[in-house]
């Protein structure tokens, strides 16, 4: 049995305050591991490791693909076509966005579909791929929080993981890297250790499925003798140096709404049709600064745990290279950005005033319909709520 050990990795100044904390656990009572430390490190040092990467069309995934390619690893990306765009084209576009000169030569794109137990590959291709893969990084995920999308989220985050783990079991994979979330502990209070968490209560289906996925991956990898690292990032945003981000969602979303509203009313203001803006209490200064009396629902003392994507990839790389025992790793920020600070930054940057963070009680109660739809009546009760653990709840309820 391997000895438990803890370590901290502090990164450079730009990422100061962000911490990685590891707790190996995964091979206790497990089967024989498939490769020794020396075999793994030897392969990696000679750049003979072949990584299979899922989710590379997403924000984290493409950054991981870039990082691995910069380290000259062989990377096989599994991707689907979408909107008549072929997988390779999609990845090409993302590498272009990253500023690379095309898809790096060490990166290969394979059209595959995790929704299918055979990954959408022919028997021959499936087994040929299995014979090449040394390590798997599973980044593909459905990050929606909506209970209404439970089936879709469960499929993406749990069922598809089974398909990939089946593949891993049949392959020469010796290390499975699973990108989870810092919120996999759900509603559990107190200190959250870097280990699998026993909890059954979650804020949303995303947390729940990520928790289930961690359990699934741990059990299967233990049985198969595959090492497992679970990475639990908090909320990842754009590059800390350039500000570049792939999508303006998650923490960017409420900012986007504010800017959208500002632009909308500013246009009317310029067209001299100010009546509606005035009715909403919106006004503009001579310098174009907007006063928009908008309330944002936020828990008292609420904040956001943010990490920039370059910190995430650096942390991932550091963990991957050094934590060979397998374990759970929180990639989080020691400093929480308060909602009021976030509002302050937004107001300053976009020349807006009037935004307020207020508790839920300040909003009128949501109308509760008397009629129950059949889908509501049969909807599985999970104890989940629609509250996000990001920072905004029900962003659809701006009050002016």
């Amino acid at each position: 049995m391997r000895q438990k050990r803890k370590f901290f990795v502090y990164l450079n100044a730009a990422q100061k305050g962000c911490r990685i904390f590891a707790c190996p656990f995964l091979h206790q009572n497990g089967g024989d591991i498939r490769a020794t430390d020396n075999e793994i490190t030897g392969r990696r040092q000679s750049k003979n490791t072949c990584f299979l990467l899922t989710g590379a069309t997403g924000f984290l995934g493409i950054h991981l693909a870039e990082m691995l390619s910069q380290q000259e690893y062989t990377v096989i990306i599994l991707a689907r076509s979408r909107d008549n765009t072929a997988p390779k084209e999609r990845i090409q576009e993302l590498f272009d966005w990253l500023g690379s000169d095309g898809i790096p030569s060490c990166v290969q794109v394979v059209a595959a579909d995790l929704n299918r137990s055979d990954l959408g590959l022919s028997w021959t291709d499936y087994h040929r791929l299995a014979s090449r893969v040394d390590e798997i990084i599973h980044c593909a995920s459905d990050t929606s929080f909506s209970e209404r999308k439970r089936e879709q989220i469960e499929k993406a985050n749990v069922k598809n993981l089974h398909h990939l783990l089946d593949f891993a079991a049949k392959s020469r994979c010796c290390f499975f890297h699973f990108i989870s979330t810092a919120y996999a502990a759900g509603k559990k209070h107190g200190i959250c250790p870097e280990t699998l968490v026993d909890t059954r209560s979650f804020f949303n289906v995303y947390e729940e499925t990520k928790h289930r996925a961690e359990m699934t991956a741990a059990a299967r990898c233990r049985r198969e003798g595959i090492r497992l690292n679970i990475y639990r990032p908090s909320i990842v945003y754009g590059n800390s140096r350039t500000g570049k981000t792939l999508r303006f969602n998650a923490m960017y979303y409420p900012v986007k709404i504010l800017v959208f509203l500002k632009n909308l009313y500013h246009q009317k203001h310029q067209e001299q049709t100010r009546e509606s803006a005035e009715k909403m209490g919106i006004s503009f200064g001579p310098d174009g600064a907007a006063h928009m009396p908008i309330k944002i629902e936020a828990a008292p003392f609420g904040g956001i745990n943010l990490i920039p994507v370059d910190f995430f990839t650096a942390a991932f790389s550091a963990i991957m290279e050094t934590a060979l025992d397998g374990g759970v790793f929180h990639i989080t920020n020691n400093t929480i950005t308060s909602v009021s600070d976030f509002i302050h930054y937004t107001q300053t940057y976009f020349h807006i005033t009037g935004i307020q963070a207020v508790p839920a009680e300040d909003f009128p109660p949501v109308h509760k319909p008397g009629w129950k739809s059949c889908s509501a009546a049969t909807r599985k009760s999970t104890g989940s709520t629609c509250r996000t653990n990001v920072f905004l709840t029900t962003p659809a309820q701006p009050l002016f």
Partner: protein
Amino acid sequence: MKTIVGEKWATNDPAHLIAYANDPFPLADLQMPGYVVLPGSADELVKIVRFADKARIPAVVRGNGGSVFGFVFTPGIVIDVNRMKNIQLDPDNWTAVIEPGVTSFELQKAAAEQGYRVNTAEPAATVCGNIVCTGLFSTWANVYGVGADHIVDMTFVDRHGTVFSINDKNAPNVFGFEEAVLPSPGICTGARVRMHPVTDDEEGLLVPFTTLADAVSFAKDISRRRIGLAVGILGGHYLSTFISPTRTLAEQTRDVFSGILEMTCVVSVIGDKYARSSIRQMVPCVIDSSTLRMFMLGLPQLVRSDLADIVQGLESDRPAYETVFSEEMLPVLEEILSPSPETIAAAVDEDLRDFYEDLYSRPHMTDMVWLAMFRIVSARMSRHKHMFAFLIYVPLEPVDVIQELVTSFGQIAEKHGIEHDLGFITPLDLGKRGILEYDYYIDHTDSTESEKIRLAMADIEPMVDKLSSTCKGVTFLKYIFSQGCARKENFLYT
């Protein structure tokens, strides 16, 4: 025939006959009639029928231009009732006495001027013909019924020239129903149809749903509770087409409805203020008449704006439409849409814009009650392709029957490469039953598309017949054809 109707109203001139040789039905070929005659009265109509019978010349009756099922072709005489347009309102009895050439629009207009409403079909359809052929259904059938519910009396002339009123004790029984394709009881020479009272607080609203099952369940429930007047579940294609002046805008709107706003379908309700108040208490989101008007006048902005990007980013357990149509959001939505006749007119070709601006400056084109009564915009359904409508009477409970039908119609259409969508479902008889329309869209001028529909029909008929034989309340409308005067109970509860 000229001696019966006058020199001007009977002809065998091919230049006139050609106008009666075709309709959009894709499975019927052109057929030139031998003669066309336009009687001016019931008496003339009867004489023509007797003449035809005596001369052994086949005769068919044609309403205001044509049917869409190829029923009005003959090598003999086409009797066009277009001159028989007399309407006599009888407010004391809440009825109207009409001749067979009266169209839905004409009758509705006359009734509305007196503060009444009739249940009518598409504006150009003749009322009598529609009753006889289909039993006349619309979303108003929820409260006004179908078939015999519409009529107090009707007179017919049978093919031998015998005239009878359906209320005569010895008349053929038109109120019964037989599940078979039967000939009509004769040619209708006149009818006394029901008018319905109208209150001055009627307005429309839409209740959006993410699933058809929920929409059906809701429509059934309000019908059972006698909430609302006209009730219809509209599919995404129907709704977007109704409210969009161009096909392109309709397609874009449909994408926004289903893809962005998550409105798979809506329940459209016309009701008085009490009904609307009840509905507001029942569901989390309604699109009321003023919001719908705003929406209709601002549609081009809806599909162009950044709203889609904003709405798609919402993470909520509520469907996106609940957020977008919430009270707090409506002023914002109004800013985004900039609703006005000019805005909606921008969707049409430049040379039509002045006309559309004028059209949409009037209240009618955005008034749900008026639109539901006069059904003007139903013409938009066939603006890019001929609509081939399949109509089935169905039980609303369990909803599986409807879902099976919808799935089957969809699968058959896909199999044959035909555009398709759910049309509407309207509850009947307090929600116990309903009528479902599923639409296929084909280019009826393209012979390959006609062949597709022919093959699809071969799959559809056994599918519906099989369901009908195993499931109570499922009746294909093709069996109602020409039995439209039947009591609804006789075909709804077989």
